[in-house]
């Protein structure tokens, strides 16, 4: 297990940010998913040792999160969510500086800085002052400083935030390359579902500081529920109430499409029976291919 935490609690004063988180992460690319304020960044910061948990325990790459933060940081790369850099430096000096701080010899760090800047696509602008970089270039730079010391595990906090579609595509391409071919484990925190679905095979979903779901995306999508899309005509309220009473979750889109999440083992015929009883016409009914977005909506709840 690369990351393992047990019953983790953390509060910012009176606000409880994490409530009894239990995670065991396997190898590969892992998505940490949740709406804003779910506790994703807090969890990453605890794993890095920036914050000390109120209670609970955890290990990252076998090192204790309370007592061995230095060892964790030696072998982990971190790409923060915020825009961060050191003014007055160019990309090569900055990346090499970060490598040195990780424990690389100076000359090796410089050589390696050139390599990773080339890898993330900043080779042309590596001697430009960081202040002149665009948002997309800064994201790439953050990724470069994160992998300069060749970590075993990298934490990416909202890696695609503030990027245009092309920049987002390229960053995701880089992340997929790192996680699938470079033997570096990746933990991506994001609230952008397609990013996680595209890059990760395993997902941890947090909601309001608590664990909402975790597992292989494919398994979570199949086992936990069945999703049906339908359109109806007639008295909606009573019909929807009956559906909710049989433990299914119903979501209505703007174009009046109903998404019905049926619990495992429930026969979809039940929906038709209720429709008949409530005198509702079913105009459209199809079993939907579940996406991570559906899973997310199911476990987090849609307002």
């Amino acid at each position, binding site marked *: 297990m690369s990351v393992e935490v047990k019953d983790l609690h953390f509060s*910012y004063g009176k606000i409880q940010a994490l409530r009894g988180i239990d995670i065991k992460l396997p190898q590969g690319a892992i998505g940490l998913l949740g709406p804003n304020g779910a506790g994703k960044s807090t969890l990453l910061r605890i794993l890095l040792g920036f914050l000390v948990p109120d209670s609970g325990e955890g290990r990252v790459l076998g090192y204790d999160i309370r007592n061995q933060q230095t060892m964790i940081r030696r072998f982990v790369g971190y790409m923060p969510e915020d*825009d*961060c850099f050191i003014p007055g430096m160019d990309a090569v000096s900055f990346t090499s500086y970060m490598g040195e*701080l990780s*424990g690389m010899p100076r000359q*090796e760090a410089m050589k390696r800085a050139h390599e990773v800047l080339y890898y993330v696509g900043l080779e042309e602008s590596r001697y430009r002052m960081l202040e002149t970089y665009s948002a997309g270039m800064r994201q790439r730079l953050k990724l470069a400083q994160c992998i300069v010391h*060749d970590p075993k595990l990298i934490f990416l906090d909202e890696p695609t935030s503030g990027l245009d579609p092309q920049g987002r595509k390229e960053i995701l391409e880089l992340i997929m390359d790192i996680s699938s071919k470079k033997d570096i484990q990746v933990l991506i925190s994001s609230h952008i579902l397609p990013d996680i679905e595209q890059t990760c095979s395993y997902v941890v979903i947090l909601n309001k500081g608590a664990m909402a779901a975790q597992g292989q995306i494919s398994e979570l999508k199949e086992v936990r529920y069945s999703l049906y899309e339908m359109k109806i005509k007639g008295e909606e309220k009573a019909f929807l109430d009956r559906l909710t009473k049989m433990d299914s979750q119903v979501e209505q889109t703007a174009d009046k499409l109903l998404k019905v999440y049926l619990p495992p083992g429930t026969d979809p015929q039940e929906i038709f029976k209720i429709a008949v009883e409530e005198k509702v016409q079913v105009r459209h009914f199809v079993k939907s291919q579940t996406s991570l977005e559906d899973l997310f909506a199911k476990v987090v709840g849609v307002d």
Partner: protein
Amino acid sequence: MTIKERGYTHWDGELQDGRFPWWPITRIGIKLTFKRRFFKFFFAFTLIPALVWLVGIYVSERLEDFKFMMEGETDFLNVNPLYFKTYFTNEFLLFMVVMILVFCGAGLIADDLRHNALQLYFARPLKKRDYLTGKAAVIFFFLFIVTLVPGIVFILFKLIFAGNLQFFFSYPWLILSVIAYSVLITTFFAFYTLLLSSIGKNRRYVAILIFGVYIFSDIFSAIFYEIFRSRYFYLLSIKSNLQQIGAVLFDQKTPWNIPWYYSLLVIVAICVFAAYVLKRKVRGVEIIK
């Protein structure tokens, strides 16, 4: 070019537990300071007092040769502890020290706060003390060049110009005084600068604070002294406290006729307060409760 074509290779070296993990921070801090506009010119200007005192040492050994230039008093050319004390506690030097801090110290932490860089540092195997030592060492580097280095050079050149060791045997403790005062003044200003740099995110604002607190502490102490006629108000002045301690370390009479250990207490209290604030302010993540 696609990602596949670019490739990524693992690094086959081994990450080291450096003895001085703070050294890269210091090296970059010094480098970035020298890149600042006008700094090289200004820093050379701060060495003028040292040059003048060095010429004074040379002239003191060749008084006969320079007699045609001298009229009246030549006592000020007696190279003794007073000569050193005058160099180390003169107002111009202290002022220039503060100006160096404005250039090299204002942005040390403020820039990292402004650009969210602290989390980049603390995502590395660095401890808080490594970060602060690295930043403080930048100040030590520049202030030692205008305090410790000239002090030792004065003693060496005095011995060289005299051609004998009499000066050394007359004041064997002087080199210790030079080291002690240089370390004291530099340590104090390191705490002072890092404290002010950690409470603002704008280096210009911090620069004004570094300059303003030093100047206004002196102005206010003088105003209070004029109103209440109590010498103890000189304890409010950073400059006066440093001059008091300097006088004691060079075995001279204190300028304000108040116990020197009160001044030391004020200086130590500021350092302790700074250490407390730095411990709370410098962290990988900003916590807003």
